[in-house]
């Protein structure tokens, strides 16, 4: 019975969405006057649209050549702080719910290829992850993919070796300290410049590793935080295995 209701709702929703999406024609550009934004503080209408501002001004205003990174860390850094907080909340929630369970051992041993392969892959995973988040302002990537790669290296080791556990306390400290570094950089922006999360370091030459102001610093903090957080979530789930 519920199956038919489900099929009916799904088909209705499909028809509804297609009828809406057909109207979203692809554009030739986002420069048209229909997209010019209006500043709500002083009511002035600009002569460019928001995306074209990002494309044109990223190099000058932030020193990064990767526009997506500049948006994630500089222009909309507050959203990134919120996202890091959501991940932190989920990790806290997981440890809040599962704290009473015993560390039972996995029944099946992994086979030889997994065991030896994990040992080889782990250092490369850590290195690749670190490379991705350190070069976030120059190449695609940044803190989140970098942290995920690091966590997947640890995940391989957790799956291959039943007795392998990363030190909980250390992971928790890394999480807390890197999260606090993010907020402290923001508060420093408030003290040294005029607003929260404003860039207070000289921008430098775009295209070089030491450039783009606070972007590499924040991305390194995010990389450590996401890596340790995902590793601790996965490890908590492993502890429950019977």
């Amino acid at each position, binding site marked *: 019975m519920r199956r038919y209701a489900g099929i009916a709702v799904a088909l209705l929703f499909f028809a509804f969405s297609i009828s809406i999406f057909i109207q979203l024609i692809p554009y030739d550009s986002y420069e048209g006057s229909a997209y010019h934004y209006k500043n*709500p503080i002083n009511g002035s209408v600009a002569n460019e649209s928001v995306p074209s501002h990002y494309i044109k001004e990223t190099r000058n205003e932030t020193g990064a050549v990767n526009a997506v990174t500049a948006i994630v860390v500089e222009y909309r850094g507050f959203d990134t702080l919120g996202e890091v907080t959501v991940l932190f909340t989920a990790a806290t*929630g997981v440890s809040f719910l599962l704290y009473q369970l015993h560390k039972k051992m996995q029944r099946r041993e992994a086979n030889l290829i997994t065991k030896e392969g994990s040992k080889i892959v782990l250092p490369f995973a850590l290195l690749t992850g670190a490379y991705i988040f350190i070069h976030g302002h120059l190449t695609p990537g940044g803190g989140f993919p970098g942290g995920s790669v690091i966590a997947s290296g640890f995940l391989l080791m957790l799956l291959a070796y039943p007795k392998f556990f990363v030190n909980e306390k250390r992971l928790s400290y890394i999480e807390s*300290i890197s999260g606090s570094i993010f907020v402290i950089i923001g508060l420093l922006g408030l003290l040294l*410049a005029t607003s929260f999360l*404003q860039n207070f370091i000289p921008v430098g030459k775009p295209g070089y590793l030491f450039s783009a102001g606070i972007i590499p610093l924040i991305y390194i903090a995010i990389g450590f935080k996401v890596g340790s957080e995902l590793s601790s979530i996965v490890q908590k789930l492993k502890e429950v295995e019977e």
Partner: protein
Amino acid sequence: MVIHPVLLIAIPLITAFIIPIFKKYGAAIAGGAIAFNMGYAIGIFFHVYSNGKIYETIAGFNPPIGIFLAIDSLSALLALIINLFAFINFVAIGKEANYKFSMLYLLAIAGSTGIVITGDIFNMFVFFEITAVASYALIAGKKDKKALEGAIKYMVLGSIASSFILIGIALIYSQLKTLNIYDIAARIASMDAKIKWASFAMLLTGIGVEAEIFPLNGWVPSAYQGASEGVASLLSFAPSKAAIYAIARLMLVIFPFHATYEIALWVGVITLLIGELAAFMQEDVKRMLAYSSIGQMGMILIAFSLASQDLKYALIASLFLIVSHAASKSSLFLLSKSEKMHGMASKYTGIVSVLSLIGMPPLAGFWGKWYLMLAAMDEKLWLVIILIFFAGIVETAYFARYLHRSIGNDGELSLRYKAAMAAMASFAILFGLLPLVYKIASLPLWGG
């Protein structure tokens, strides 16, 4: 003096991040952060009360290139209520909380405050998710069967809701290429009609799940029943109020059209009726209070929908209703910890809260219903007035039955618990007497 509202969010966040390092003092540190938040929110409220709306740009870039926080009188009042009651509630339950609970509590408060003070729609979505995830973990924290069931229902509906909100944001962005609420409001007229209404439907459905309107409130009874009393109290004043504020911004600022008003009005009426009638049929106290919350949310939605037509009394009514419901329902949830009302504090809390919800002058709830009726009379909505009156009668009936069954001598609560309950209930009296709400409603809002 320059005021930085961003500290209302930054301080709880950094406190929540560093609590795991100081495990044993977790509750004390959290209490300090919430106290700071309460003081700062009071300060911001009085600043906005005397000086008008304020804003703060984040990261130094002007909106809509960057994000900005826009606080007007409506936001300031809601931020005040959330942080004030957060402190009082934490006084009641902080003693027996471990450090993880305190962290989740701080994050839920920071998330709710973020929803009401931001001026950017995607930022509002991110704060929604912070609040929602913290609520899921807090509800499930009690770990018995009912708590887990409530948490699962909430999670399923909440995830669908967040997908719908994102679809709504995507549709708006595709046509207007901006994410700033007031920029969208200024240019909404140039949007294609079909996409405009589709995005309104998506956003209303998504935010409506958290705001407990019909038919998206299936999670409410199980979640409130399963949660522990302090958490149920938190849910009454933080996420639901922030969500109904978001719907109000949606209706008043972004989609100020006549059809919006009609849809919201009738959704509100249906929610009110279903909530109150279902509450009448409940045996369990917490379920009854949960359904009553649904009914009150319906009434607040009716008030905001009338306010979108620029009626003089409707905005005043909605503010009174929000304050009355937050104060009364939260204290009633705290009260439900004991089976019967023992002693002066419990009786005082119970009676004051019930009277405010029913609508006895001079409590805040009375003014809320009074101005709501006046606003509805202005629009000649006689059917709505009759239905609100009928709902009020049902409410009186089940609350009278509740009082009759509960007054007795049983149950012993700690001193700080009783003090917190009584303090919360007193706000219903306070706001009813002070002329604060009238001035707030007459101040100019962002977006006109």
